[in-house]
């Protein structure tokens, strides 16, 4: 058996590690590129949301490299993701591509099926081995997420554009190759040092922008046109509303135990959106409010074109933006999105944010002077 899976950001690192630790051979699809998108758009439904198209591209490329089994997650609605695997299976079948699909459905309280699914792929590995493999994979994931947060801080301040991205590539590569938890700890330490050693600019004039939106577009640089890197190199520190490890915690651990750790999001969003709408639509609202309160300069919403939860959020965000006083820019992405177009809009947005900041500072200085006058 040769197992493959869809790409989403650095998900392949923990997944490959998990399977390798259990002795299962994996085929990581080539990094998402032109060819992936071309295959996806050719064979996936025209109006499907972008992640499905990229999945299909990933699978076809992996099949060419000898993969025979796809592992992916399922879902229970209301969003399209919960039926992706079924549609993808039909597409592959009609193309005559021999790929078995193993769909791990979220447990909803029934762990048995998930467990059986895992056993099937891992060739009947025992619980202890799965636990150990899971622990290593989880540690890799959390290390990646921690270091990526650091990367965002450093990138906005680097003296030579590209220096931190270079370091990040090395870090991902080393984490990918680590074979034990202790090794992951070591690489994480080195990684931190590597990022800390990057020469910074003299000034500390950075804008802070929050990224909200649909999980796949947030996590996959190849479909968001590397918006984080582009912003970072424009001197913008980004804060992202979703990290993969948080998502795993919320959805796989808490929800399956019928616990919630997202009450706060519902509470924050309530004046604007009184119900969950699938995906991360509600979080796009609540995080915009969080970011405004934390004093960030602006918010960018990212989503695939036709993404239902994010269209709900997009309809409401202008009101939120006015009420809490933070500019919001929306990008709806599809396979035709152009880097040039995005860069132009980002530059204009940053100009606006800088101008707002200057005005606010002038206002504050003015207010301080006025207060001083009054005291005299």
């Amino acid at each position, binding site marked *: 058996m040769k197992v493959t899976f869809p790409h989403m950001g650095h998900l392949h690192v923990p997944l490959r590690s998990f399977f390798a630790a259990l002795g299962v051979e994996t085929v990581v699809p080539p990094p998402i590129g032109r060819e992936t998108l071309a295959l996806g758009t050719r064979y996936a*439904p*025209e*109006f*499907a*949301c972008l992640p*499905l198209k990229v999945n299909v591209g990933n699978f076809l490329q992996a099949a060419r490299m000898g993969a025979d089994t796809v592992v992916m997650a*399922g879902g*229970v*609605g*209301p*969003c*399209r993701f*919960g*039926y*992706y*695997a*079924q*549609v993808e*299976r*039909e*597409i592959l079948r*009609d193309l005559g591509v021999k790929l078995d699909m193993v*769909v791990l459905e979220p447990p909803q309280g029934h762990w048995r099926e998930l467990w059986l699914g895992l056993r099937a792929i891992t060739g009947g590995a025992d619980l202890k081995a799965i636990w150990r493999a899971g622990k290593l994979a989880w540690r890799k994931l959390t290390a990646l997420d921690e270091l990526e947060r650091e990367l965002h801080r450093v990138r906005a301040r680097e003296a030579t554009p590209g220096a931190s991205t270079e370091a990040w590539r090395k870090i991902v590569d080393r984490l990918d190759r680590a074979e034990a938890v202790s090794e992951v700890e070591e690489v994480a330490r080195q990684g931190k040092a590597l990022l800390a050693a990057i020469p910074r600019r003299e000034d500390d004039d950075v804008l802070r922008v929050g990224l909200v939106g649909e999980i796949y577009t947030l996590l996959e640089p190849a479909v968001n046109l590397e918006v984080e890197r582009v912003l970072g190199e424009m001197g913008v520190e980004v804060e992202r509303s979703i990290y993969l490890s948080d998502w795993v915690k919320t959805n796989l651990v808490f929800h399956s135990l019928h616990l919630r750790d997202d009450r706060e999001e519902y509470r924050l969003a309530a004046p*604007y*959106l*009184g*119900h*969950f*709408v*699938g*995906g991360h*639509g509600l979080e796009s609202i609540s995080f915009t409010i969080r970011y405004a309160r934390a004093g960030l300069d602006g918010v960018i919403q990212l989503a695939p*074109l*036709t*993404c*239902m*939860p994010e*269209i*709900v*959020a*997009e*309809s*409401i965000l*202008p*009101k*939120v933006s006015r009420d809490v006083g933070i500019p919001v820019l929306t990008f*709806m992405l599809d396979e035709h999105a152009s880097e040039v177009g995005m860069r132009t809009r980002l530059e204009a947005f940053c100009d606006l944010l800088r101008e707002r900041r200057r005005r606010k500072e002038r206002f504050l200085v003015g207010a301080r002077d006025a207060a001083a006058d009054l005291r005299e």
Partner: protein
Amino acid sequence: MRIGIPRALLYYHYYPLWLTFWQQLGLQVKSSPPTNKEILNQGVSAAVAEACLPVKVFYGHALHLAPQAEFLFVPRLVSAEPGTYICPKLMGLPDMLRHAGKKLPPVISPTLNARCGPRAWELAFIRTAAVLGFGARQAERAWKVAVAEQARYTAKLGEGKTPLDVSEGAEDDDRSSRKALLVLSHPYNLFDDFVSLGLIRRLRARGYRVITAEMLPGRVIAEEAARLPKALFWSLGRLILGAGGYYLRSGGVVGIIHVVSFGCGPDSLVGELLERQARRFGKLPFLLLTLDEHTGDGGMVTRLEAFLDMVEWRGAS
């Protein structure tokens, strides 16, 4: 008190229930007129560009009603049957409308969620009535009448009538002698004569009997839907794939037309599954019609004519 109910989205499915309930409580109920150019334009300019056509049309109806009503009734439709949803957008619809930055009367939006138990809809209606000052007893009575009205309507659909026929009191369609076409779509596309560019009228004028998913018994839909590789969690999609599967297997129609709105999320996948199924069976001609705010009569008529020619040519050979 005058309550406005936009004639859009699932109004076409639930209007007997919604209208009757409020009328029974003595409210004056005002629906918007059938969609027209002005309503469409109003909706298109008020909604975000990425929204699907039916949501845009809905905005238009709500804005049209706004000056004429003290309240707007816009339920939050989460689920109509246990284990299913309808569409993420309908779960956020009342909030989208409220925050669209338009002058609107208060929006009343009970959460209708059959996943919360068999009486969830009823309780939501009773609670909403309480907010407007009606007692529980009175509301329960109104609910019973409304449910009976809805059942009568559903039964009429089972007799081969479309919601338009029912509301216009059309005579019984001749059921046996004419060739039938299966037309699959969401009720708010098909039964909005303006949005669907009179599709049903056109087909009937060409001598076809029109069958829609609503005309099939729920049992048949459920049986067909059970064949899907995984339970489909969209109830409208289940209806489409259930009816489509049934006729692909059993014949009885000379062709299938699937009508989708530009930008519809669920149908991008449901339509794909349907089309692949139709291709595999390979027996029935299949036409996909996409509706958007720019669809001119011309383009659709040409495609429809070509399709019907094919249907007739096959019938002759």
